[in-house]
């Protein structure tokens, strides 16, 4: 007599017990994903890590890296480039995280409402989303910041405004796939209300895809925000900001290369860290 094997749902990789086997790819993915936390800690600790005040001249101007007590040199009025970069990385990192969180929340909400209600609400919300997606986001962000006036908050608002539609699309796609599944029908038959179905039976299934998208997106945002800052659409002059610090000192490039180059390298370091961490999160949640 054939006995039906009980169907065991495999646990997702991130729920399995932690092991420290350095040969297992999963261990490396966990290490990679924890870079998000490490970078956030570094960003939080920027004031402790910086050897000098980023805003105040503390030594001879234009000292080369390693000279005059400056590890990464000093800028044209004698401020410490390393300290300015650490503070700039802190601002860029948190800005990217804030925009991701904003996009995730707004886009997730729009996608959830559209996907779970269907009908004309779905149609209307998705047409608006498509309209946004049909326009070049970075160019639109420039116009929004320019009209609000350049400032850090306005940059965050502007980029969030153009960044959410991507998340709405992804969440809506996942939700409408899930809505056709039997467990949702079962919940409906059991008398669950629409809100309960959306929050308890649809949203948890859509989260992994949204989290993967968000973690792969941090690097893109770091680069996009650095570009806006480079164009002068960020904090105003004395504030340490990576893109702007590079743009303002371009004229020094052929004599004192470190002044414009080091902030750019800091952006690249942030983007690489974010991309490695994002890839690791994807491997953990969704291992092909």
């Amino acid at each position: 007599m054939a006995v039906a094997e009980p169907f065991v749902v495999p646990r997702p990789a991130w729920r399995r017990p932690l092991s420290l086997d350095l040969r297992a790819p999963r261990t490396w993915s966990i290490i990679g994903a924890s870079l998000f936390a490490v970078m956030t800690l570094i960003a939080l600790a920027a004031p402790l890590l910086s050897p000098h005040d980023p805003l105040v001249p503390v030594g001879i101007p234009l000292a080369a890296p390693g000279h005059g007590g400056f590890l990464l040199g000093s800028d044209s009025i004698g401020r410490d480039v390393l300290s300015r970069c650490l503070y700039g990385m802190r601002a860029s990192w948190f800005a990217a995280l804030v925009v991701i969180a904003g996009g995730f929340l707004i886009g997730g909400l729009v996608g959830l409402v559209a996907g779970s209600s269907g009908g004309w609400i779905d149609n209307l919300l998705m047409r608006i989303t498509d309209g946004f997606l049909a326009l070049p986001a970075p160019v639109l962000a420039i116009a929004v910041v320019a009209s609000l006036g350049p400032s850090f908050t306005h940059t965050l608002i502007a980029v969030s405004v153009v960044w959410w539609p991507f998340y709405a699309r992804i969440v809506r796609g996942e939700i409408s796939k899930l809505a056709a599944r039997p467990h949702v029908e079962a919940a409906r038959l059991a008398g669950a209300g629409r809100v309960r179905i959306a929050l308890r039976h649809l949203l948890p299934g859509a989260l992994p895809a949204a989290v993967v998208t968000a973690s792969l997106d941090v690097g893109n945002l770091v680069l996009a925000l650095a570009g806006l800052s480079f164009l002068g659409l960020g904090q105003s002059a004395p504030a340490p900001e990576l893109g702007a610090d590079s743009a303002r000192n371009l004229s020094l490039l052929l004599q004192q290369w470190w002044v414009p180059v080091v902030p750019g390298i800091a952006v690249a370091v942030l983007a690489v860290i974010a991309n490695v961490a994002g890839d690791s999160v994807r491997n953990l949640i969704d291992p092909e």
Partner: protein
Amino acid sequence: MTQVRFVGQRFAAMVIIVLALAAAVFALQKMSPLDPVHARLGGQASQGAIAAERHALGLDRPIVTQFGHYLAGLVHGDLGDSYRTRRPVTTDLLAYVPATAELAATGLIIALVLAIAFAFASTLRVRGAGLFRLGLMLGASVPTFLLGVFGILLFYQHFGWLPASGRTSIGNAPTGPTHLLTLDGLLHGRPDVTWDALKHLLMPATAIALGPAVAIGRVLRSSLEGELSSDYVRTARAKGRSERQILLGHVVRNAVGAAVSMTGLQVGLMFAGVLVVEQVFGWPGLGLYIAESIPVADFPAIAGVTLLLGSAYVVINAAVDVIQAAADPRIRV
């Protein structure tokens, strides 16, 4: 018949999106704390002059009427006057567009060449493909402006191979008819001008090309690999076709669709890259224009650049969809 209907629908969608863009730019202008009358007349103007100017600009009419006038202006190519240059924005844009168009087009060509090389090298497992891939990936993680800066340090300062700024170093370069120096040089029988323009283009165009190249190359590679594991490829292999024949004769045409769509989408990223990289190379295009407009809050100029680049992006992507539908009847939106 369905083809015609598809083109019609796509065209209608394009017009609606451009209208929405115009409405968004108009709304931003209204939301902006900057008063256009103040910007035109300065702080010392009398009450009467301000009222007269408000009336002349139509700012005392209802907002819907103002939007109607704005749209009518756009249709006639009127984008308002720049606060900074005091000239019509359209005139300014016409002066700056050719440089940007030339740079963006060259960047797109370089991005496509790199993407195709990347996708085929890793699909065919050519020796050194891994290294090439790593190089491209690193390049795509580096901000555009830093790529430009590294290029200048290496190829201008260290090797002295390439110029570091501007479009040309030839004083009497021909002006017209296309205003694209590479083409004008050829049309005027001046290959030296074309060669010089190409040398100026190479660094900024490569800097904006790397990010899109990786994005396009990834899509192309994954659809190439997807097609290679399909049944018709197995049949072709069983018939004894070589891998090269299979790839070029069967697979490429089926695999290219997603990459073409991605190319259209990457144009947006490329426009943003152009605006940034023009600062680094002192390239006399829209990026320089918008960078000079941002510090003085010259909103009509910024709005003009946004409308122009936004519409170009929408039109390019509509064209990509139509071309794809013509090439592959399976595609429908």
